[in-house]
């Protein structure tokens, strides 16, 4: 199935794009989407412990289920204000 991956800030720079359509095996979780992504872009791995994730614009956990068409976002530590 297909999901849309959103990447921000340095994660976006490392991936070369802020939005990727990815093919993932079903059933999928945020973690399995992430692992597939890191497999293709190993430089992202350093963020595994410090990032936050969101599914369909709500904060989520790595164990959250992901369905066809979902938007999965990986967010490096924030620095707004």
């Amino acid at each position: 199935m297909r999901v849309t991956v959103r990447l921000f800030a340095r994660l976006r720079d490392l991936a070369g794009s802020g939005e990727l359509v990815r093919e993932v095996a079903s059933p999928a979780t945020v973690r399995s989407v992430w692992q597939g992504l890191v497999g293709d872009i190993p430089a992202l791995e350093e963020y595994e412990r410090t990032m936050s994730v969101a599914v369909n614009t709500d904060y989520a956990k790595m164990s959250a289920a992901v369905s066809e068409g979902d938007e999965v976002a990986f967010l490096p530590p924030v620095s707004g204000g």
Partner: protein
Amino acid sequence: MDLQAQSKPGPAMMAVPLVAVTAEPLDLAALSRVLAESAAADGAMTSFAGLVRDHNQGRRVSYLEYEAYEPLAVKALNLIIEESSMFWPTARVGVHHRTGRLDIGETSIIIVAASPHRSEAFAACRYTIERVKQIVPIWKHEHFEGGDVWLEGATADPGDEAARNEARRIACA
């Protein structure tokens, strides 16, 4: 310019929301007016503005670019206002955050808090900026003399009670 038409309220005039993430310049007076409109019971209004500084960690900053995950940033700002109203039920808060390129001296965030007495307004305002830095998905891309760097602060976790308590502690200090 047709001043008459501009000052006339109506559907043509854009209502100023309490929460916004926008690429447009921020207007502290407009946000203050919105809170003042329903402030008959309030004796205090306080505000905070964040500005782009010309130095950071020993670097001479040229300008900042702010990037946001806008739908989640708006939700996170609304969550902060909800949290604030649990801690200080009499305080009302509005917050606008800017995105895109900001030059030195430009305003990146404005917060306005109104309450019957000053202590709640000050606390709610301070709490809001502390929480923004903890959980709102917005990032600074700093361009400085000799390079550029993404600034990375806190891991955003709205459910982290320790972080929430720390923001509350600072707000009440």
